[in-house]
């Protein structure tokens, strides 16, 4: 396993609309993408761009996550953290299946099979208890990146 680019930080929120206003007006975000539903994962998501080291808007993104009706995992997170909060970190890898095999070989609990994530590439999550307390998402780098 080789540490890849930190693609995004997942931030759970009870309201993407309110959080988008916060990132725009308080944090000065200049690029907030249109929210969209990921029904397979029971969430609505919205990406906020941040600058990279070169100043261009190519840095680690903030992924705002709001539960869709019936979602249990994000909803329970919000029950414990009503204002929302940091939920996961997502790293890129070049080959999702190879990464999954490597994590499993290290005894890490991979949560489910690779599936399409918010960026349209395959992703999986690794249990936070095996990842120093951090729910970790692994995503395959987009072909156009």
């Amino acid at each position, binding site marked *: 396993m080789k540490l890849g680019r930190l693609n995004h*930080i997942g931030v759970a929120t009870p309201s993407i609309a309110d959080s988008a206003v916060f990132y725009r007006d308080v944090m*000065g*975000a*200049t690029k907030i993408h249109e929210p969209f539903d990921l029904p397979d994962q029971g969430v609505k998501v919205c990406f906020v761009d941040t*600058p990279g080291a070169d*100043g261009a808007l190519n840095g*680690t993104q903030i992924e705002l996550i709001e539960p869709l009706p019936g979602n249990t995992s994000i909803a329970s997170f919000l029950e414990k953290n009503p204002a929302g909060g940091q939920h996961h*970190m997502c790293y890129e890898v070049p080959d999702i299946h190879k990464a999954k095999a490597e994590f499993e070989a290290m005894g890490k609990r991979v949560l489910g099979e690779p599936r399409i994530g918010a960026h349209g590439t395959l992703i999986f999550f690794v249990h936070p208890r095996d990842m120093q307390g951090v729910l970790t998402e692994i995503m395959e780098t987009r072909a156009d990146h």
Partner: protein
Amino acid sequence: MKLGWLNHIGVATQPKPLPGGEGLGWGCGFGAAFRTRRRTPTPLRLGGKLPSLTAPPLKGRVIGGTP
């Protein structure tokens, strides 16, 4: 205010020196990370007063692994 570069994510860890015992221990990243000799770990008070956040950023420094 304009959103800047996301410099780092703080991840709390247990108050235990890393294997090898040199340098990186509890409180690393808040001024203690780059010491090369062992010092008495200073507990980080997560529930109370936070340590100084004015320490220089970690950019460009190797703080773990094998250089």
